[in-house]
């Protein structure tokens, strides 16, 4: 028997919808296998991991709080990856957005006006975009691979944040804890639907809707798609590859920066050495699970938020390490990529004999 792939004449619309669902199904199945290997009742463990987070108002709020940054970053990366610009340094851009936005409460501690918050969010976007501009510049000017440069900058941003909160930006009244002053009043994002979900969630959905329109209906979206798909044809169409790199990096960097300041001005309420639990990396999975479609990214963001929460509830209820969520996330990404093959190819099984000419 031999497995071969046969290219479809036309991309399969049915498979485009089915492939993420199939990937989730496979992840759940193999997740059950892993739980069984860990000596747990797989059905109960899967319930705790995937469904329990949806059963209480508290955890649904938590879900939205976690999904918001994933969607914000994920839609930017979706556009970026569609253009085949591989920004994998969103985690660093998130950190820089958080740092830039925090300059307001740190340096203008007493400033209280609606503009305070606006200024923080704008600075967050600028900080992330500027940090995304570095790989864009190195790529367009020196042809340096953006995958490697953007990733290296994640470490640099992490050390910078660490230095700031332990050094110059440390709260003088903070009992020597490595954290900044606490944000107050207009330095904190207003909440909606109760007391914990903040407007970051609305920003995320709005960003997704706007980008969905841009990608589907505008010439900019056409430019992104053509540059990612066939850059030579894109140039023939009159677009500039360098401009596309800049656009993609600034957009995804800015959105990651916005997610960063929302994280600090929302759930955290102050700067601390560790700004995100790896949202910038998880958002890569979100972008792919959403099939690089901004609307799809909203659902994918919720799915990945479940995997974070599931990891926490699995730790509490089942005594499994919360690291299990990273394994689930990695597995999920693998299955999505494998299932995406089905969109362009048909899988056929051939028995060895039928391919050979019968010998003498």
């Amino acid at each position, binding site marked *: 028997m031999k*497995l*071969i*792939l046969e*290219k479809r004449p036309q991309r399969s619309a049915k498979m485009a919808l089915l492939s993420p669902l199939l990937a989730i199904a496979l992840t759940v199945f193999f997740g059950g296998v892993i739980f069984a290997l860990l000596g747990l009742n797989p059905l109960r463990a899967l319930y705790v991991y995937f469904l329990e987070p949806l059963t209480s108002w508290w955890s649904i709020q938590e879900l939205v709080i976690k999904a918001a940054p994933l969607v914000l970053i994920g839609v930017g990366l979706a556009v970026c*990856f569609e253009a085949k610009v*591989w920004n*994998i340094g969103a985690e660093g851009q998130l950190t820089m957005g958080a740092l830039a936005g925090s300059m307001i409460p740190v340096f203008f501690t007493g400033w209280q006006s609606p503009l305070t918050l606006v200024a923080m969010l704008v600075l967050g976007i600028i900080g992330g975009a500027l940090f995304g501009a570095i790989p864009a510049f*190195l790529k367009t*000017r*020196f*042809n*340096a*691979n953006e*995958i*490697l*440069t953007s*990733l*290296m*900058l994640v*470490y*640099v941003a992490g*050390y*910078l944040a*660490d*230095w700031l909160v332990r*050094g110059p930006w440390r709260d003088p009244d903070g009992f020597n804890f490595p954290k900044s002053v606490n944000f107050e009043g207009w330095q904190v994002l207003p909440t909606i639907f109760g007391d914990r979900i903040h407007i970051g969630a609305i920003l995320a959905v709005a960003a997704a809707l706007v980008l969905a329109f841009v990608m589907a209906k505008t010439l900019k979206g056409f430019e992104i798609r053509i540059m990612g798909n066939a850059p030579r044809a894109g140039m023939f169409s009159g677009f500039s590859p360098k401009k596309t790199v800049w656009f993609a990096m600034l957009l995804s960097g800015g959105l990651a920066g916005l997610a960063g300041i929302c994280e600090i001005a929302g759930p955290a309420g102050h700067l601390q050495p560790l700004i995100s639990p790896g949202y910038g*990396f998880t958002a*890569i*999975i979100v972008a*792919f699970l959403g099939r690089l479609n901004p609307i799809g990214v909203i659902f994918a963001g919720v799915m990945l938020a479940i995997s974070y929460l599931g990891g926490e509830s699995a730790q509490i209820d089942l005594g499994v*390490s919360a*690291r*299990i*969520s*990273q*394994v*689930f*996330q*990695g*597995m999920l*990404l*693998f299955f999505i*990529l*494998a299932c*995406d*093959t089905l969109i362009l*190819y048909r899988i056929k099984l051939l028995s060895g004999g039928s391919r050979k000419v019968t010998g003498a």
Partner: protein
Amino acid sequence: MEAIILTIITAATPLLLAAMGELVVERSGVLNLGVEGMMVVGAVCGFGAAYASGSVTLGILAGIAGGMIIALLFAIMTQTFLSNQVATGLALTLLGLGVSGLIGESFVGVPGVKLGQIYIPLLTDLPYVGRILFGQDILVYGSVALMMATSYVLFKTRTGLVIRAVGGNHHSAHALGYNVIAVRYAAILFGGACAGLAGAYLSLAYTPQWVENMTAGRGWIALALVVFASWMPVRIMIGAYLFGTIWILGLVVQAMGYGIPSQLLSSLPYLVTIAALVIISGNRTLTKINSPAMIGQPFVPDR
């Protein structure tokens, strides 16, 4: 001074091992961005096996096996299912970090088993150069031997010629009857073995303990090294030792306490990587000549 050189050598060795594997992978026309993931799995498998059995040899073998198993996943995905190599490499890294964190949770804070250094009477006792030349652990020599062997195989044997041919033009290689997919499977597995070995070196020799994410971006630096070396094995060795030096110098300067923030010194290897990439990539003739033309492109044979 002697001590500094000794640490530089141990810092350079894992970079050399991992980059050498990736060089062969890329020479065959495949871009595996999952070096970090394969390395960290190698590190946890190596540590775990050595801890459980008390044998460093078993640890090394387990590291190699761990790297290969996760590389096999990459090979199946990209070669059989034709998935995007960039995305799959990222997935490999994320999965590797997750799996290693899960496996390694019980190893945190456990004392490890350390790979010993060789001792040759008289030679090792030579002043100045004795310990540097004749007192290293076996994998340091192994990594240099690997470099020479890779260089020899790639440029002097039929195997190497076929690898370069497949990476240079898979259509032509296929037309001549070479099995492109099989060559690439083999190259990817070799890359996994090297990365796994590099990871095991970290957890058995460099710092004999298990720390989560202990590869700290070394897999990515190894990837940058391959570009830096413009796909030439000898230059990988030069690059690895250069980076090892920078890594250690940061620590040395920190220990001297000049009032430079430690975070700046810790960022140094990453900043230098970026600088190196910029210098090399800016020189297009240098990167174009050796860079495998098929890199990252999937191969679909017609039936």
